[in-house]
């Protein structure tokens, strides 16, 4: 049993540590500037959908850049909900440990406050876990784990997003991040590539 007892020495230490600290005078402005380009976190129940079709793309591990970690991904097939105009797969596999990801504040403010249900799908039969990471979740792999939805290893997640442009990747087994081969790519701030999806408002 641990009992708290008054200790003048500890109290003296605590008193010193309670002294206020000062932050940069521009701190509040920086915070507000950081949130301005972000997705408006509006709680809206009205959503819209439209019919979309799926395309399937296959690639082999050799295309993934030859990283040892990618060997486990032989046969991975990516399938994305969505639009035509997919670009060829590029060498986009990177070891997570090398990344110093920061939010990419490139999401434009949506003119509409309505949310659009956007589905992301990838097929990775040998994966044991899959997460969607992007600027909509601060590239935090813990926030949008994907669900395995088929025997052949399809992983899916549907997110409500405000209309806008988003960059994202898939994280496999908490180790490897790859781009979506069905989507256009953009260079990230870290010299690598991210997939890009533009979410449009749909009546």
């Amino acid at each position: 049993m641990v009992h708290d007892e008054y200790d003048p020495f500890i109290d003296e230490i605590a008193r010193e540590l309670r002294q206020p600290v000062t932050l940069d005078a521009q701190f509040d402005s920086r915070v507000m500037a950081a949130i301005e380009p972000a997705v408006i976190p509006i709680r809206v129940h009205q959503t819209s959908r439209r019919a979309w079709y799926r395309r399937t793309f296959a690639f082999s591990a050799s295309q993934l850049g030859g990283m040892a970690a990618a060997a486990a991904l032989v046969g991975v097939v990516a399938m994305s909900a969505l639009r035509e105009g997919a670009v060829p797969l590029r060498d986009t596999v990177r070891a997570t440990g090398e990344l110093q990801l920061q939010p990419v504040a490139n999401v434009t403010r949506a003119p509409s406050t309505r949310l659009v249900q956007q589905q992301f799908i990838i097929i990775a039969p040998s994966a044991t876990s899959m997460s969607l990471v992007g600027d909509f979740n601060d590239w935090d792999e813990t926030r949008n784990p994907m669900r395995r939805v088929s025997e052949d290893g399809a992983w899916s997640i549907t997110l409500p997003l405000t209309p806008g442009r988003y960059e994202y990747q898939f994280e496999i087994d908490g180790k490897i991040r790859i781009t979506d081969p069905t989507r256009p790519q953009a260079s990230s701030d870290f010299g690598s590539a991210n997939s890009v999806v533009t979410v449009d408002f749909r009546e």
Partner: protein
Amino acid sequence: MTLSQGLPLQNDGDADVVARVLGGDSGAYAILVGRYRAQFSRYAVRMLGNREDAEEALQDAFVRAYRSLARCDDPERFGSWLFRILANRCRTAGTRRGRREKTFVRDEIALLDASHDHPEDATAWREEIQRALLMLEEDQREAFLLKHVEDLGYEEMAALTGVGVSALKMRVKRACERLRALLKEVQE
């Protein structure tokens, strides 16, 4: 507005501000930043030991909270929710920093403290305290700050950290013992 020596974990009117932000008035978020900046920054600075890391962690916490605001189930307790995000960011930052060489610049301490009337000895003493604090295990440092600096009760600490009361008491006890040992050496 609740005024206390410790963390301002709940402020009257937070729910109204959250509702405004969720309704599209993103500028209203500045009200929440202003309410929680001061004392949360103190916690972050004490946890991380320097203003640069603390500002980064605090800004990150505010931005993450904003982007996840629709998932704040109890807007009346926005402060508690934000603090949990900040505590996680401090742990992450501490882990990351732990891999770097820990440096502590004397001038940094003087810069951190808002009071300007401390004699040299007082500044040096505070520097030693902060240095000793950084030598604690991270979970002990967190528990010590919440208990003795932010004046939280163990039940509230448990709710914030997800750690049991008994474990928290043990962490505080060990932190006190370690600090006493480290700082007694300085005094002798």
